[in-house]
């Protein structure tokens, strides 16, 4: 299996790891966003969904898989970034873009790092936060369901603002990531690449706006409720 090891350590092998793990997270985000939309259906629907997601055994397996893929994505990106920086030890005194460089494409490591910090914060705040959808706990007036925790968290302006900014950064990351992943898979053709690029832009906007909807909605709805 030396060939496989050599492949995964090659520049192109590492790129493929980035693309495949990245595309996995692209599909995960769609599922996550779908679940989030249940917030706007009803508190019960959202709580029922979060109970299933946190309870099902199959999800435990998926969680482990996701952590592994996430670590691969982070480790590979760090390795690639270190190599890329080392490849140009002396910087140009003057460096001007030929027009293809974008804010998104040139800041993938920075946006990725912000997303990493956000993910840790996000899991700590919600997944491992203090909440229970257990019917037995409902009698406790201090108990927060997942819906209640989300509503309470986003009523804080800093919390809501932080989340909104983080998901916009996520959108920037995805904007370059989506189309880049297809290029890395070797899928670049006049027939479909323009479509992939448009889909990538649409996808990144839908994800950023979709996830921003939660904090914005809950923040302003509690403002109205308070007023």
């Amino acid at each position, binding site marked *: 299996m030396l*060939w496989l090891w050599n*492949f995964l350590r*090659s*520049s*192109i*092998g*590492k*790129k*493929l790891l980035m693309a495949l793990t990245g595309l996995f997270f692209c599909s995960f985000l769609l599922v996550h966003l779908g679940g989030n939309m249940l917030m706007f259906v009803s508190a019960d629907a959202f709580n029922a969904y979060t109970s299933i997601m946190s309870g099902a055994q199959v999800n435990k397996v998926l969680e482990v898989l996701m952590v592994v893929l996430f670590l691969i994505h982070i480790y590979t990106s760090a390795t*690639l970034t270190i*190599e*890329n920086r*080392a*490849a*140009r*030890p*002396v*910087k*140009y*005194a*003057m*460096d*001007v*873009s*030929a*027009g*293809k*460089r*974008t804010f998104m*494409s*040139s800041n*993938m490591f920075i946006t990725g790092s912000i997303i990493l910090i956000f993910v840790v914060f996000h899991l700590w705040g919600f997944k491992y936060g203090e909440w229970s959808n257990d019917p037995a706990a409902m009698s406790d007036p201090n108990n927060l369901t997942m819906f209640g925790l989300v509503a309470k968290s986003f009523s804080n302006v800093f919390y809501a603002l932080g989340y909104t900014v983080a998901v916009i950064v996520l959108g920037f990351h995805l904007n*370059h990531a989506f*189309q*880049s992943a297809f*290029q*890395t*898979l*070797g*899928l*670049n*053709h*006049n027939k479909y690449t323009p479509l992939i690029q448009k889909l990538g832009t649409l996808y990144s906007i839908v994800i950023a706006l979709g996830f921003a909807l939660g904090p914005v909605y809950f923040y302003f709805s509690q403002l109205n409720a308070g007023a």
Partner: protein
Amino acid sequence: MKLTLKIWRQKNAQAKGKLVTYQLDDISPDMSFLEMLDVLNQKLIIEGDDPVAFDNDCREGICGMCSLYIGGRAHGHETETTVCQLHMRSFDDGQTVTIEPWRAKALPVIKDLVVDRGAFDRIIQAGGFVSTKTGAPQDANALPIPKQDADKAMDAAACIGCGACVASCKNASAMLFVSAKISQLALLPQGQPERDKRALAMVHQMDMEGFGNCTNEGECEAECPKAIKMTNIARLFREYYRATFTYEEQ
């Protein structure tokens, strides 16, 4: 035309370099950029200074020797242009122009604006060729090649190996160069016998040389004087995947 030049001067590979400012008067707008540097060098020689070392050869845009980072752009600001085909008329009178060598660990500066592009040679030596007996030319059309493939191979073969792709890539990646050299052979029947071996060997050599990794930005494509497209890099990936999963080493 009057010009202020800020040129990277470096005595040798080990020396520490710096940007030195030169003033030039009476530059004709019809001169090429290299002719303008010739004028500067004549002036420096008369004044007893060391002339600026820069690579050049054919001066008709096909040799790939010129390698200057002008005003922050590889081969200057014009698209699909080598430095020898860049003319002073595209600059403003009185403009300050910064001239630097390619910046990449794999293409180290030898002197002033000259870099060692031996890494490219070693990548080609690793597999960028076809092993074939030469002899009398075959009949035309003895090997049928679809026109589309011939065109794509020809477009890839336009690569002059100047290194502008490496120079303009924020990661100093050589993937556009390697992809052109792999594509020009992978698309043709003559390239088939060594196709997989070639892809593995050339990518391995590229990695050994210390180039960065492509992040699919596309600056290389935009700066390439021969308009080599990033579709070639996608083909490089496909070739490498194919070779990895199908080729049996011994």
